[in-house]
């Protein structure tokens, strides 16, 4: 375990809030359905992390031709200093990660982003996870339970092997509802099929969501219809994860009523669902809403 962050020489105006950049050893890896559960030893990251934050992993080693970091929400951390992530091997970067043998080291930046906002007083909470998007919700559930909250969870996926964490959910929440598109496990259909009932019967104050954008939109709509607040952790492709590349933006309306293109890494990844301009997302693209801050001057000069 070594840290590059400690190599920084002291000087005037040194950063007050520091984000660790560490080399984390992969200590365990296991297959969970369609996914890979990886555990890294990274005490500096584990110590600072909160539910809903993420880590950015470098892939391919020091001379990798894949320069962009892969960002994963933190599944859980342990007091011993481990950080767990859940990875779906989809492209060259995630395949490199899931092909690693234990004891290999990976450069990790984190924790990054703001975590899930937590209620000050005990509240009724519903957690909704799509596929392996559920990864951060179990740790969140544990923290909410410690605060005296009532916690139900809904886990949905296309097929049974793409569900993540059903067993763990039974341990850390009050009630678990499962849906699959093919009906192989739980209720056949999307999470939106069961969510109105779950939110209604639990009289939910807060609905936390993590998963594909289409699901988060639906979670927000259902929560709003039941006067619950939706807090959703978004998935937008990021190049850096630290707020400098400006690629992971999405239109979010602020308290001043103005919509801005906010970075989902540093200004998210958790946003109030009713603040996201869902209508801007279509067909794998997100348009800048015409009324967004600075949209006019961009439009005037971009063909």
């Amino acid at each position, binding site marked *: 375990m070594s840290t590059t962050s400690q190599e920084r020489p002291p000087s005037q105006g040194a950063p007050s809030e520091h984000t660790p950049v560490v080399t984390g050893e992969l200590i365990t890896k296991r297959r969970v359905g369609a996914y890979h559960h990886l555990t890294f030893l990274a005490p500096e990251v584990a110590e600072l992390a909160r539910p809903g934050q993420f880590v950015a992993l470098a892939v391919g080693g020091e001379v990798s031709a894949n320069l962009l970091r892969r960002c994963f929400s933190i599944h859980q951390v342990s007091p011993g200093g481990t950080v767990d992530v859940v990875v779906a091997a989809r492209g060259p970067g995630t395949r490199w990660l899931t092909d690693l043998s234990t004891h290999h080291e990976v450069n990790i930046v984190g924790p990054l982003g703001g975590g899930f906002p937590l209620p000050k007083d005990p509240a009724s909470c519903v957690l909704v996870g799509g596929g392996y998007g559920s990864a951060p919700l179990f740790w969140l559930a544990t923290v909410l339970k410690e605060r005296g909250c009532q916690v139900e969870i809904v886990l949905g996926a296309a097929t049974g092997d793409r569900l993540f964490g059903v067993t763990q959910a039974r341990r850390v929440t009050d009630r678990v509802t499962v849906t699959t598109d093919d009906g192989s496990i739980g209720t056949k259909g999307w999470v939106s099929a069961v969510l109105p009932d779950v939110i209604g019967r639990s009289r939910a104050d807060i609905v936390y969501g993590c998963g594909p954008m289409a699901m988060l939109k639906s979670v927000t709509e259902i929560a709003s219809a039941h006067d619950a607040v939706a807090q959703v952790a978004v998935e937008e492709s990021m190049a850096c994860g630290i707020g400098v590349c400006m690629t992971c*933006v999405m239109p979010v309306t602020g308290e001043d009523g103005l919509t801005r293109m906010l970075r989902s890494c540093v200004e998210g990844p958790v946003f109030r669902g009713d603040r996201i301009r869902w209508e801007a997302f279509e067909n794998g693209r997100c*348009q800048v809403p015409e009324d967004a801050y600075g949209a006019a001057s961009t439009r005037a000069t971009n063909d």
Partner: protein
Amino acid sequence: MAPPRQGPLMIDMRVDLAGMRLPNPLMPASGCAANGKELHRFFDIAELGAFVTKTVLADPRSGRGTPRMAETPSGMLNSIGLQGPGILDFTRGDLVWLKSVGARVLVSIAGNTVGEFGDVAVVLSESPAFDAVVGVEVNISCPNVANRGLVFACDPLSSANVVALVREKLPRHIPVFAKLSADVTDIVQIASACVKAGADGLTMINTLLAMVIDTDLLRPQVAGVTGGLSGPAIRPVAVRAIWQVRAAMIEGDIASVPIIGVGGVRTGDDALQLVAAGASAIQVGTATFNDPTAPVRVKRELAAALQDKGFARFSDAVGIAHTRLDKAR
């Protein structure tokens, strides 16, 4: 007894770029470091020779829709569209903060018209924290704005018009660097036009206009259709462009001005290539996305590499490859 001191402290890394005196030649590349606060969580940005801001225009800009990027071999394509706060908010917020942490600021400016470049320069020069500004980089080469046929840096006359106006609007002690594109037939011609128009230095190179197709959807991967290619993949293009312009200066075809080299620098050795080709300073861009500490790491590595090769001063290595050419021929 302590072992003899190794490392960068023995080499003089100071540079003087057209009167811009910096403790070392390392900078972030514009648009790869936001406006400082984000990287300040990883290292003290006052350790950099200068901090180059994200290009700022007159008005606030939302930038383009998403997807805005695509990973490419040893690089990436970006299509941000110059998202930013506009010059007024920039001078009231980011610039004040940069000054508060002791950064030497090289402000990157742009405009949709020649006049807008001048307006931005005026607002900047009249702002309260202007004393933190050590220079202005005129971004005439962003591929993600305007009608691409009219990227200023693709035309010598347009480039000269912008540079002359910005030069006129800024106080004489603030050097003006023109940021050039290598997407031109003859970069020496553009460089010459900028220098004649009053550019105190040149920054080379901006991203290269490029495109990626998403083969699942069989459509352009970024929403802006085309984007700017950056990263180590374009480093040889940067080395070539710097070499050509430096050679023209040595030949006396262009007045000799400092070149800030940028393009695909990931390591100290990469930086050394640009320096040997003729760059008097180095910007680190896309590598920062891979390693947030890249700008200061490259500074250490470059100093170590120069020291290993027996240099006492960084400035002695600038353009050195031009002096080692004849024998090779």
